[in-house]
């Protein structure tokens, strides 16, 4: 029972992170029907920006005097940075191909992913880069179960970001414009929505969330690596598909489920094959239920 509860806590933490990454996939797919292969790299870039900023602050001693302020500041700056990166990638690699065949956009995205990953490797080195922070060490102990402060922090930040995104998409004018563009690009541009701006904004939002996830993964595991975006990227995509691609609530739910399955699979079945579970879910969902849990009907060009 203790083991189960402990795994449940770990699963929620990991699931929240996958949900944050999955949102970027699902929003971009919803609006321009593209699997953004470079999305995992925004996540990795977020992890690196976090480590760079926190190391800089730690070297000046601010981390010991104002730890929470530093962490918050680094998180916000990282999100802004990755949003800028995503907008640049969108302008360079995707926008000129908006009316080209889907295969060329997909290949262009793949090229960007390889480019960014190797760019990170060249600028930051091949080896793991440790996070400086000893932040969030310790935690609550309930018998055999530990709930670290870091886990609470991750879940709290995730919830805040998810609620904020929901409010943005469903309550504001910008969100309305986004939903309209996703539904019908031609019609929405006829009523005066600048679809290029909305697409840019979508990329920026998705990358910002992925960057936050990157910083938190870095804090949680203690280090980042240049190729850390690849596997979580696929898993988050699996989460997006599981929830019904294009559906924001679905992506959150899917991320949570994938995180749980991975943790419980690793705990009860086999730790070595933990990466396989997400792929099996992905294939099973696509085979039996291609619309996902909360997806609407999709036409045959997508599946």
């Amino acid at each position: 029972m203790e083991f189960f509860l402990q795994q449940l806590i770990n699963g929620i933490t990991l699931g929240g992170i996958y949900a944050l990454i999955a949102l970027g996939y699902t929003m971009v797919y919803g609006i321009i029907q593209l699997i953004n292969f470079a999305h995992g790299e925004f996540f990795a870039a977020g992890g690196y920006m976090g480590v760079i900023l926190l190391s800089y602050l730690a070297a000046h001693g601010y981390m010991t005097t104002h730890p929470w302020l530093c962490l918050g500041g680094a998180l916000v700056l990282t999100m802004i940075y990755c949003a800028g990166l995503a907008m640049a990638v969108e302008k360079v690699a995707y926008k000129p191909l908006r009316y080209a065949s889907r295969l060329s956009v997909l290949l262009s995205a793949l090229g960007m992913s390889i480019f960014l990953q190797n760019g990170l490797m060249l600028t930051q080195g091949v080896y793991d880069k440790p996070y400086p922070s000893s932040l969030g060490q310790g935690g609550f102990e309930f018998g055999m179960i530990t709930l670290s402060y870091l886990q609470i922090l991750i879940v709290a930040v995730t919830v805040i970001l998810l609620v904020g995104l929901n409010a943005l998409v469903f309550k504001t004018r910008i969100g309305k414009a986004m939903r309209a563009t996703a539904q019908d690009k031609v019609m929405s541009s006829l009523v005066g929505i600048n679809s290029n701006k909305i697409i840019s904004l979508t990329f920026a939002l998705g990358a910002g969330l992925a960057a936050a996830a990157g910083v938190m993964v870095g804090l949680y595991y203690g280090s980042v690596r240049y190729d850390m975006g690849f596997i979580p990227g696929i898993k988050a995509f699996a989460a997006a598909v599981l929830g019904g691609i294009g559906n924001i609530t679905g992506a959150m739910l899917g991320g949570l489920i994938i995180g749980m399955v991975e943790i419980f699979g690793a705990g009860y079945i086999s730790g070595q094959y933990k990466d396989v579970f997400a792929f099996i879910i992905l294939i099973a969902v696509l085979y039996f239920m291609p619309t996902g849990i909360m997806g609407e009907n999709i036409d045959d060009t997508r599946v």
Partner: protein
Amino acid sequence: MILESKKIWKNYAIGLVWLFVLLWPLLGIHDDGSLTVGRAFRVWLYVLVATFLCLSLYLLHKNDILKWVTSPMAKVRNRVTAAAGALPNWFWVLSVLTGAVLFPLFSHRYAQDVAINVLIYVCLGLGLNIVVGLAGMLDLGYIAFYGVGAYTYALLNLQYGMSFWVALPFAAFFACISGCIIGYPTLRMRGDYLAIVTLGFGEIVRIILNNWMELTNGPNGLLGIKPPGIYYPSFAHGFSLEFLYLKKLHYLYYVILFLCIFTIVAVYRLNYSRIGRAWEAIREDETVAELMGVNTFRLKLLAYAMGAIFGGIAGAFFSARMRFVSPESFSFLESAMVLSMVVLGGMASIPGIILGTFALIVLPEVFREVELYRMLAFGAAMTLMMLFRPEGLIPAKRVGTRSEERGG
């Protein structure tokens, strides 16, 4: 035109500022708490000079200012094409073939090593071409079949002492079976879903190879695989057949050259067969192809299995040549590399893919000192090709004409 140029320069300037803002935090903020500008500025300056030159040339070309250079060049090109067209096709094929056969006589070890690599990747590229170029399905886990072929030969050789030539059909067969296993559930999907699922399958195969200690020896890999052998007639003591392991590089070169020619002929014949036409129909429009009576599911599965077979053959040769296999050789990056060869050369174009493979294997060998930037350049090249020349270096010739090309 002037106005348009002004707009381009404005966008270019904004892009460069943006680039600097993105570059500086990665290169200018240091762990020891110092901030520098020098390194980021230097990298930025290189990019600036390179892109400025390209953009200026492009704009000059657009405005017909470079006519005095381009028009004589176009004349020369036309004359060369005309001269090449004057000689029959078989002449060129024959001369390339003669060059390939005679190559080991005029080259040293290192060049032969690179040539063997090129030929392995030509096999892989042509196999992937069946799936991506002909049938139009993006496969990102292609390297899995290469791995299956390599491990099949390695295990058959180590466990049962099977020779290369006997094991080769088995390697092809197992790769084909695994292609069918992967293809059966996934081929109902189209386009981008298929891409991500094949990527997942490729990773699953790698993880299994990495973790199944009893069979594959995990990450340590398998050692001591025998190279291919042949029987040759010997007249030393009367007539007898002697057995010889082909350990020397130039023997191995001939083996892979043979496999490669086999692959090229097979893919060429497939391309112009009924099946090849059906694949092209599926690539152009699956729904229409199905309406015209093409059994799309079976043909897609066939494309997948055929691609897997050539991957398996190349894999078997790879393990025979290296005499060592480990899961490291079958990572996603290899898949991406084979894919970028196909894309760079021109999808569905056999000479294009051979050229693309040459470019991606030989160029990094020539520029050894910038080895680190190889994958960076691959990624950039892939995106740039899609932006400026999506049909590849040597575009494929279409069979027949399309209604909209006929005019009227």
